[in-house]
């Protein structure tokens, strides 16, 4: 996996005004046959993006096909990433170009998968989510700034801001480009000691 760190993301955003977006929509099962982590972006939201699975027939009303919307931040309705545990969903969003997904809450497994891929899930209040949607839908060029160090998300034009929660350990990982395996490998002696102790019980 390519290591990356993340701190400040400042960009226009794409508003996906839908709730319960499941990982089958983010990346349909038929695209899970790869044995590498690359190239999933072109099939992101595949069946919402194209008619009859045909790339020459984009669905005009789907948000990723609307020319005015682009950026590194995806804003989506509550319970984003529910359903299947497929990490391919996080790979697809990252490969497409998103560094941040904002929602009022995320499904647990998706949230872990995103963090493990330096895709930052930002949980905001339902009221702030509505403000974000309105700001971006009114002005597609409106800049949204996510500051991981300060755990804040700001709508540049109105300067409205909200604090978001993140586990301090995960925050350190994201800021410094560490991952969980680095940490777990560093305590392997303790893991072995734990195994030995359990074997005696």
């Amino acid at each position, binding site marked *: 996996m390519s290591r990356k760190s993340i701190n400040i993301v400042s960009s226009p955003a794409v508003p996906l005004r839908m709730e319960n977006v499941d990982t089958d929509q983010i990346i349909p099962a038929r695209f899970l046959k790869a*044995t590498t982590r690359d190239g999933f972006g072109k099939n992101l939201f595949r069946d919402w993006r194209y008619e009859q699975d045909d790339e020459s027939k984009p669905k005009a009303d789907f948000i990723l096909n609307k020319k005015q919307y682009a950026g590194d931040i995806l804003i989506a309705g509550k319970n984003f990433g529910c359903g299947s545990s497929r990490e391919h969903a996080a790979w697809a969003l990252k490969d497409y170009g998103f560094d941040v997904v904002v929602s009022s809450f995320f499904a647990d497994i998706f949230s872990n998968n995103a963090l493990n891929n330096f895709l930052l899930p930002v949980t905001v209040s339902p009221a702030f989510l509505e403000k974000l949607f309105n700001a971006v839908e009114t002005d597609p060029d409106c800049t949204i700034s996510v500051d991981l160090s300060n755990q804040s998300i700001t709508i540049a034009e109105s300067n409205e801001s909200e604090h978001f929660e993140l586990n301090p350990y995960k925050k350190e990982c994201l800021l410094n480009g560490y991952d969980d395996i680095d940490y777990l490998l560093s305590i392997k002696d303790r893991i072995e000691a734990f195994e030995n102790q359990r074997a005696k019980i």
Partner: protein
Amino acid sequence: MAPGHAFFTNSDESITMGTTLFEKIWQTHLVTTIEGGPSVLYIDRHLIHEVTSPQAFKGLSDRGLKVFRPKQIVATADHNVPTVNQHLPIKEELSRKQVEALKDNCSAFGIELYGLGHPFQGIVHVIGPELGITQPGMTMVCGDSHTSTHGAFGTIAFGIGTSEVEMVMATQCLLQTRPKLMRINVNGELNKGVLSKDIILYIISLISASGATGYFVEYAGSAIRSLSMEGRMTICNMSIEMGARGGLIAPDETTFDYVKGRTFAPAGEVWNQKLAYWKTLVTDDDAVFDKELHIQAEDIEPMITYGTNPGMGIGVTRNIPTVESIEASDRPNFTKALAYMGLEPGIAVKGRKIDYVFIGSCTNSRIEDLRLVAGFVAGKKKADSVEVWVVPGSKQVEKQAIEEGIDKIFEQAGFQLRSPGCSACLGMNEDKIPAGKYCISTSNRNFEGRQGQNARTLLASPLTAALAAITGEVGDVRDYLISELTN
């Protein structure tokens, strides 16, 4: 390993309370906890399959690592495999490559593989329990959200992503934050024709597809206790469909009887020691949950879903909600779901024609499910307009079905008994429901496109699915059971 009492401190006083089943297992698997961060949880058993493991193996290779505890991992091929002609090479090239990659990786890293052709092959969540790999008090993970199934044995079992698969391969541990705990109590007696699938679809319809996000759920109460292991697995399996990390049920005599004598179950003196420990795996009477829900079993009807998430379910005699009855903020999703399904608000689902019946998946493909369906359809024939696929959960289930003559009953009814795999639950192989067609399915997800692009899924119990196979439409199995009794 005697169960201790946890000491809880809240903001203004220190009080001693009992311990939950979840905490008892969690505590015995904690290697360490990072200050202000997650805990390091030791994993007893790791199940892998072809779809979510190749990138993890590659990650290990890239870092020059070996699998830390290969004997604690079991692999099978299930998601991608065809359900006809399994003895032939897989036709679809990418599927074949993925299944071959699993074989190569397992051989290179020293992992036991129950691949195609092996008598133990099957859906990962069916083979774990039936082989006795799944045991009470364990921690288990798999790169698959329905790993929650194994919680039926009183284990902490949950689905993980591929990066986490790699972590467990490398260190047999995961970094986890302790989830909140919810208990769902189902008391009373189930109505005739109501199965465990109806219980879980009912629960999800009450609390929604996100109602348990952030929680681990313990199922309790007399109606849960009365269920077989197969029934309990169906319930725990769908915990993820309400957002829960997992679900679990305290082990009891039903559990011990099921585990005893299975291929990898403990035996002799080890069995006695384990059993003594397993009997301590209950939630103490004075334990406190973050959230608790009480349900009366008598309130549950046979269930059917009408929408595009598992929370969109109703009793089979009820009508689809009207737009007005839906909260304003949920209306766009409700309307979109019904448009996809080709259904209108306020109408009945009962009586709707269906095109396909799928009996299978890690939710309902065990021998008990097949017996129930066979018992119902014996001597009957499927409706001409309907195609019926029965996909057993494993080679063992298939073998058992044949030994019991269930295959003959299905053949006479016009049902296709196929070979084991995930099949039309997610349509990764060739078993796809065509666009626009209605499929009544015993699987776990009715998401858009789940069973094939633009396919329309109605989730139901194996009995409700069997009835639809015979009549060609959605019906109330209770009417049928009563009329059969009176005839």
